């Protein structure tokens, strides 16, 4: 069983990432995106964007690209230490405040909001919320993840 007392309320250190155009183009290719706004900078500019926009679910990827040194779900020493063999993605949500673009520098912070068990501990649930802020402090997106751990 995950030690709830130890992990609930833990806030990661701020992680700094720059959104890379090359990765957004790779993401578009890997997902079969057909709208050139998401893989062609000229098309993005023609549509009124300053650069290629970060697509809606790529915030999860930005979060995964820079595991926190404190509170990461897989980290066995300084995080929750979930076994990758047992994890399932239960729910995922996003709230947006401002479009984010290739070249933007973001600060990412993740909070472990809740951990609970069901079925006598056969299933455990970890809720983590992540904030994405631009350099100037603007909150651009929030993500909320529910991970399911199958102990049975």
């Amino acid at each position: 069983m995950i030690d709830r007392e130890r992990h609930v309320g833990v806030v990661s250190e701020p992680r700094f990432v720059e959104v890379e155009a090359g990765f957004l183009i790779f993401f578009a290719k890997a997902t079969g995106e057909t709208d050139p706004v998401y893989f062609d900078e000229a098309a993005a500019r023609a549509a009124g964007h300053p650069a290629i926009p970060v697509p809606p679910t790529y915030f999860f990827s930005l979060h995964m690209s820079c595991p926190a040194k404190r509170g990461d779900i897989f980290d066995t020493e300084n995080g929750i230490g979930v076994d990758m063999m047992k994890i399932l993605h239960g729910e995922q949500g996003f709230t947006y405040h401002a479009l984010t673009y290739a070249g933007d520098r973001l600060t990412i912070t993740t909070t472990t909001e809740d951990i609970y068990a069901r079925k006598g501990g056969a299933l455990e649930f970890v809720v983590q919320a992540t904030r994405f802020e631009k350099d100037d402090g603007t909150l651009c997106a929030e993500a909320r993840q529910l991970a399911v751990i199958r102990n049975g």
Partner: protein
Amino acid sequence: MANGHLEITVGETLPELVRGPIDRTTLALFAGASHDHVRLHIDSDFAKAAGLDDVFAHGMLSMAWLAQMLTHWVPQERLRHWNVRFTAITPLHATVTCRGEITEIFEKAGERLARVRIGSWTEANVQTLDGEAVVALV
């Protein structure tokens, strides 16, 4: 082509988006592109050791496809909030169909919004994602 101006009604459906079949290359590329290196999706030996028949698709791959359905319908800046539950594993070789239906039109903070029930299904008609999105209508 995304709508510049929307005149929509409750019960209206979004254009479907179909992707797949998902093969091992799809999963390898998505793992790399999405920074999601969970081995259950890319390493058959690891998946079998975990008691599964084989690797299965990232839930976030289908969620990315739902995002495409939404952003092909309205410009991304209209997407305010959305949430999905992953209700079943998406198996290797699945073809995924994304669907959406307007369930409510309402106002909040002076903005006209539509609530959209969204989901994805495999060709075996198993629902893999179930959720809703709130988009602004201008």
